[in-house]
């Protein structure tokens, strides 16, 4: 029977529903699915097919974007499990994490004030290391311990780091342009 488009993103790409995924397999499944439904394939088709192709291609891209990003993938897995990551509302964070955040902010502000792009790029690399670490934690919380609360906390922490990375990027751009 045909694919049910109400199915989840993992099922769409024939992937197991878990945090640790084979990204090469995801890439190739996305490209295969995108090749089937891309509007370029339907330029001379009837209108009904064109509309459906646009919807399907959009859906395929959305599923891919969600599964490709570790944070979005974790948020989505939690959502499927009925857990709200409450990123806007739950602001309670471990004190040590908040301290580290303040240090990050200061470091970024200093590098920005000194107009030091190299320093900002070094911070960005360092931040990427922290992100990797948190993602490993997130993986084990989701796939091994099934600890939703810990996973939701890790997602919230990663959101903070995402914002830091955005700040670094903005600072670099502001200095370059």
């Amino acid at each position, binding site marked *: 029977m*045909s694919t049910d488009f109400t199915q989840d993103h993992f099922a769409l790409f024939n992937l197991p529903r878990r945090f640790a995924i084979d990204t090469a*397999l995801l890439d190739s499944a996305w490209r295969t*699915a*995108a090749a*089937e439904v891309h509007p370029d394939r339907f330029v001379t088709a*009837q209108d009904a097919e064109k509309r459906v192709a646009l919807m399907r*291609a959009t859906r395929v*891209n959305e599923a891919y974007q969600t599964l490709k990003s570790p944070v979005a993938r974790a948020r989505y897995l939690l959502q499927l499990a009925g857990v709200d990551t409450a990123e806007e509302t739950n602001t309670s964070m471990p004190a040590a994490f908040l301290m580290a955040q303040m240090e990050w902010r200061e470091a970024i502000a200093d590098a920005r004030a000194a107009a030091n792009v190299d320093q900002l790029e070094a911070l960005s690399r360092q931040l990427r290391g922290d992100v990797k670490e948190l993602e490993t934690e997130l993986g084990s919380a989701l796939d091994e311990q099934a600890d939703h609360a810990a996973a939701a906390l890790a997602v919230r922490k990663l959101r903070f780091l995402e914002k830091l990375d955005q700040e670094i990027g903005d600072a*670099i751009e502001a200095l*370059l342009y």
Partner: protein
Amino acid sequence: MALLQIAEPGLSAAPHQHRLAVGIDLGTTNSLVATVKSSSATVLPDEHGRSLLPSVVRYTEQGEVVVGYAAQAEQSRDPNNTIVSAKRFMGRGLADIQDVGRSPYRFVDAPGMVQLLTRAGAKSPVEVSADILRTLRSRAEDSLGGELVGAVITVPAYFDDAQRQATKDAARLAGLNVLRLLNEPTAAAIAYGLDNGAEGTYVVYDLGGGTFDVSVLALSRGVFEVLSTSGDSSLGGDDFDHRIYCWVLEQADLHGLNAHDTRLLLTRAREAKEALTEHAETRITALLSDGLTIDLVLTQAMFHDISKTLIDKTLLPVRKALRDAKIGAEDVKGVVMVGGATRMPHIQKAVGQYFGQTPLTNLDPDKVVALGAAIQANVLAGNKGEDEWLLLDVIPLSLGIETMGGLTEKIIPRNSTIPVARAQEFTTFKDGQTAMSVHILQGERELVSDCRSLAKFVLRGIPPMVAGAARIRVTYQVDADGLLSVTAREQTSGVEASIEVKPSYGLSDDEISRMLTDSLAHVQDDIAARKLREAIVDAEGLIAATAAALAADGDLLSADERSQLDDAIAGLHSAIATQTTREVNAATQRLSQATEEFAARRMDRNIQQALKGKHIGNL
């Protein structure tokens, strides 16, 4: 019909008929048209064998429209009525145009887009571009000996929604069926990649007459995936001419030149720039209208000196694109140079230094975009090439919405793969609020005033509720041309209000049809007869496609669904028998809607089969 071909290759209406389709590079300085002939892409020359068509349009005293070299030859003599570089004004208001005094034109500020005052009246840049496209269209039809099925038109990757919409409008005005708007660097990558069997990460550095684009692409096994794109939509080869022009003014101590002298010196400046590509120095001479003679020598070293900041300006978007693609210069396998301006040796040198490798210049930088567009047009028109390939492009600029306090909230971030859609929920902030205004913005900055305003609309008819109770879902959809449409819908009460907008810079369908009627010599009867003919052709196409789909995948429908479809087909047959355009169109519409669910199921089956094949292949 494409679905048809996937399922039943033999069933398409005329399997061996080659459908005429072209790629058009609508450039700031020059335009080209290309097509695929016996499986190789080639640029179509004019009757004198010239490939380029200067993007210059002149409106003559006799009421004629002259396009190309003949218009270019008169541009110094008749500067007000000879429009060059119209592309710079596409989708732009008067306030957007930097240094209005630099152009010899008389601008008229019109809603949405500037117009240029000529003796033929106020001309929108869309109309000027349509004149160029019309010339290329007849060049192609004369050379190919038939009517075109459609065209792929290229646009700078960094064009925003207003500029894209304006380009599409120009093509419609020229009577072209737009198969796709294609980003120029992506077109170049297709031509280059397919020619060289390239695999890996490539950067396309595209410096045209008036725009600069840089794209980072991952090429692998027939997939062209754009990772990021950046650029400057008002930086190009023209700016190098202008630097020379300013240098001449300074050297000769000239002030307040008239339009004729300005144009003359800009032309001399362009010639000097081109001469310096091959020679160490060049002489600039001109006789001004007041009898003053200009005679100067410009050396390559001096030229490099006065234009160095322009080159530096191109390297900023390059850095940004690499950052967005999350790669470094060392990860880049090759840098493809596109656009006539990249012939300048000091640009090649600067780019080579930045990437630590010699840029690739083996394809003609003037033709490569048109060739890539032709290859894409050939595939889109349904002429399958030997190898299957797929293009995954992105949007260049983030799309957002105005929120409280004049701030922009991003809905779709830049460099998202298209097509893409995102929805966001908003609520009312006053008790009993029945309307909400939606302001659509494009750009990266936080303040609304720093972004480009694409459209504003008001969603009315929200049932009165307490503040915060309404749930208004705003959905942004970007199609494969990179064009945006927005819908808003209140969803709590079951009362749905929904509106669809096209950004305000585009022409409305009414304006397009008015311009079309203005420009067509057809009498009313011809148009009516033509409309009926077209409606019937469409209807018959739909019936044939539906019948073929039923033959292939009829098992996806229940008996009930099947009989509904059969009824709609019968309805369309009887509508055709009435020979009334309105009835045929209405019945076509009904059958089209009735087949939508069926089309969806068939597409889903194809995805599933493709993925299965893939996974079995992987085992």
